[in-house]
């Protein structure tokens, strides 16, 4: 009954999204030629279609949840992923525990973005509609139509099952063992799907032939929001992997992990391209990066769903894979064709002089991020390529990524640290170099300190040095901001003491550049730190990753009750083994009493849980988290009589910094997001001043203080 309603909701979505897309196309094509009253009416109808589309997706998702909660095993998705013994929380989250339901979540989020975008124009049309908007809605509409069709025809979760089973196996045990299941996938998807907005506007700019990068300004908040959500999603995913999978790590360069990292890298590059101010700000780069980001999102969705690569996240093979691949190729080809048609818009028409150190470093950083993405993409797709050529299944070892991606990532961070020493105005090279003296000294000191105290590989030392360099740079900006005058952008203008021989800084130079020096109010405080916070977060992650991947010590052995296992000064005594079982499974818990020297650190309880419905045993780690290090214990086997257990004990130093850093980066993104409203007026004032200097981007820097 509910299943039929769900099928109808999905079936309604296809025509609704098609009609909506056609209506927006009509709005886009009538554009300037029609009277504004008629145009407004058309747009209103199109907006209604967006509401209906959203309603259809919402209805389908809601009905699937209802089926899951009511254990309606006549519905295929529930028969495959529902279970009577599953707690309510994990029943709700099982909507995105398998392919068809997760596609529905994708669709739901997509229609939410579509609706928000449609409505965002409602507020703006009164003040003159941007011609790009209806085209952007068309692009979003096309993507929505595709995903509705995919859900309806290739992956319909509401298909009925005959005869109806009496129960289901429940979701994959790994997906009902940690509360993050309710947060990580929705956040990741929200970040993923949000990348459709900059993509849609980029394509719209190509279609309308709007040169420059006004669209970057329009989509800045969308970009920042999606980017922050994606960052949080990736960080949570790493934490989840650490807390559930029991292998003690958080990142294994798994194809699907890479699939989430790739759009993050290109989106980060896009955010930084938006900050380059000279040379009409590289519109070609911006369009290419926005497109690449969304194509990578689609490719990631394809990788997860095609069964093409071996991964813990991969769902089973299904017709969804090839269809998605076709769509990815179609989008990529379409944008390439558009770009070829509008090619002249993408290259700057005039040669611009006076490239600042800041622009150069920003660009170098963008190139570095894109290179990093290319290297990771190659490693991810190489097995597919190699299989196509040689017919042999293979996989790329993590050593590849350690050798290639890690050095490039460190180089990118050096560029970020250096860019923080520049200011928006032209700075003399010596000024910038002067500001870099302290961070460089701190970095060298950090390398020396770590190198002397712990035996470390060159890459680990480099990571510590680079992180210290960035953090010192952040502190320098922060301290300078407190003790010195700040220019109109909340940017530090005082040259560092070492640069005093040439007291050249933007504050004194600016009047030479401009006939009318603007004096708008300083930016609000929190926003100033957005970029600093994000960069500091990256450095903190780097420290966490370097320390936890280099200095982790672990041991694994079978111990009798009362015996101990010792790792890095931490001793775990097996106090006992408890068994408990109920109708829905069985669990064995090892009680481990931890001590460090004379200090009692308490008891931790790693578990083995058996899920009979799926005939699967999951080893759930027990983690004692402290700022300096985690004690991480897993039990991999227990004797029948409970007399002994095979225990793996690990001490992971500073691993908490990885989550902390992820949180800081996300917070940075959200702070930058809150900035625009507060500074819009100031920015508008400045734009008028900017007009004569030829800057096409009214957008104030995201990474202020950089």
């Amino acid at each position, binding site marked *: 009954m509910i299943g039929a309603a769900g099928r109808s909701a999905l079936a309604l979505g296809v025509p609704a999204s098609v009609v909506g897309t056609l209506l927006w196309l009509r709005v886009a094509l009538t554009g300037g030629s029609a009277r504004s009253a008629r145009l407004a009416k058309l747009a209103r109808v199109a907006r209604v279609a967006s509401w209906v589309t959203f309603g259809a997706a919402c209805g389908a998702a809601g009905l699937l949840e209802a089926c899951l909660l009511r254990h309606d095993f006549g519905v295929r998705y529930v028969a495959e992923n529902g279970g009577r013994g599953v707690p309510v929380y994990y029943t709700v989250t099982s909507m995105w525990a398998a392919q068809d339901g997760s596609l529905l979540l994708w669709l739901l989020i997509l229609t939410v973005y579509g609706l928000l975008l449609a409505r965002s124009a409602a507020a703006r049309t009164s003040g003159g509609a941007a011609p790009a908007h209806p085209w952007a809605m068309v692009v979003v509409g096309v993507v929505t139509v595709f995903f509705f069709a995919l859900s309806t025809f290739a992956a319909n979760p509401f298909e009925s099952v005959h005869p109806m089973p009496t129960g289901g196996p429940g979701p994959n045990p790994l997906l009902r063992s940690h509360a993050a299941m309710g947060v990580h996938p929705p956040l990741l998807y929200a970040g993923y799907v949000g990348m459709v907005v900059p993509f849609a506007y980029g394509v719209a700019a190509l279609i309308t032939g709007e040169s420059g990068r006004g669209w970057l300004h329009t989509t800045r908040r969308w970009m920042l929001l999606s980017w922050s959500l994606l960052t949080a999603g990736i960080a949570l995913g790493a934490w989840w992997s650490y807390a559930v999978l029991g*292998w003690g790590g958080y990142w294994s360069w798994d194809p699907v992990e890479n699939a989430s990292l790739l759009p993050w890298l290109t989106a980060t590059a896009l955010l930084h391209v938006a900050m380059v101010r000279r040379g009409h700000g590289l519109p070609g780069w911006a369009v290419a990066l926005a497109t690449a980001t969304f194509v990578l999102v689609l490719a990631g969705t394809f990788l997860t769903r095609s069964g093409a690569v*071996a991964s813990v996240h991969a769902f089973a093979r299904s017709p969804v894979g090839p269809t998605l691949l076709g769509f990815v190729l179609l989008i990529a080809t379409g944008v390439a064709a558009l770009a070829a048609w509008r090619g002249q818009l993408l290259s700057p028409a005039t040669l611009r002089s006076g490239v600042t150190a800041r622009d150069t470093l920003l660009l170098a950083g963008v190139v570095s991020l894109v290179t990093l993405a290319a290297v990771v993409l190659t490693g991810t797709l*190489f097995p597919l390529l190699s299989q196509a050529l040689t017919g042999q299944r293979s996989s790329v070892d*993590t050593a590849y990524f350690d050798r*290639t991606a890690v050095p490039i990532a460190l180089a990118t961070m050096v560029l970020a640290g250096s860019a923080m020493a520049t200011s928006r105005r032209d700075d003399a090279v010596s000024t910038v170099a002067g500001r870099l003296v302290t961070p460089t000294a701190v970095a060298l000191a950090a390398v020396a300190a770590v190198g002397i105290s712990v035996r470390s590989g060159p890459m680990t030392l480099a990571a510590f040095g680079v992180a210290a360099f960035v953090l010192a740079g952040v502190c320098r900006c922060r301290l300078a901001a407190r003790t010195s005058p700040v220019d109109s952008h909340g940017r530090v203008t005082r040259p560092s003491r070492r640069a005093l021989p040439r007291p050249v800084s933007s504050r004194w130079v600016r009047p030479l550049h401009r006939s009318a020096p603007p004096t708008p109010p300083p930016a609000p405080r929190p926003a100033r730190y957005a970029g600093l916070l994000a960069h500091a977060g990256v450095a903190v992650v780097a420290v966490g990753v370097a320390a936890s991947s280099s200095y982790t010590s672990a041991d694994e*052995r079978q111990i009798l009750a009362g015996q101990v296992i010792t790792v890095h000064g931490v001793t775990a005594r097996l106090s006992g083994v408890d068994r408990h079982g109920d109708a829905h499974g069985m669990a064995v818990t090892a009680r481990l009493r931890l001590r460090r020297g004379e200090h009692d650190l308490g008891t931790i309880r790693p578990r083995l849980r058996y899920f009979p419905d799926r005939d699967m045993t999951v080893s759930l780690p027990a983690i004692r988290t402290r700022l300096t290090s985690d004690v991480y214990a897993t039990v991999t086997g227990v004797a029948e009589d409970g007399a002994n257990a*095979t225990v793996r004990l690990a001490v992971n130093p500073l691993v908490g910094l990885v989550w902390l850093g992820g949180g800081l980066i996300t917070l940075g993104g959200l702070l930058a997001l809150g900035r625009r409203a507060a500074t819009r007026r100031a920015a508008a004032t400045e734009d008028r001043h900017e007009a004569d200097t030829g800057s096409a981007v009214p957008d104030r820097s995201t990474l202020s203080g950089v």
Partner: protein
Amino acid sequence: MSVDPLRRRRRGALCLGAAGVAALGLLVVSGLRGTLVYYRTPSEVLDDRPSSTDRMRLGGTVVPGSLQILDGTGTRLRFRITDGRRDVMVEQRGAAPPGTFAAGRDAVVEGVLDADGVFESDTVMVKHSNEYRPAGSSR
């Protein structure tokens, strides 16, 4: 006749880009060297010994009744993996994740084949649904 400065700059950018791509290619190729691990079945391994000296992943079904624990700590195991036609003896160092080697279950191990035709494995790939991920990777 002077060259248009815009064109000259574009040519410079093109050269720079080409050099960058070449450097990237070199980095990727050198990075990939030795990091490719192939999936093999027992038949492939036994039929084509000479090419089976590298590190590889071996996949198949655990032969029922073949699992032996070699030492008291439970971290050395021996079992046979079959693809239905041929089977290979595997010696596993390091404990395996629970339930991996239940008889008749699919398993994937990673390591090298020694001269006696015994596969020395140090990594067990945990099976989740139909896919695998390495257990105990270093990161």
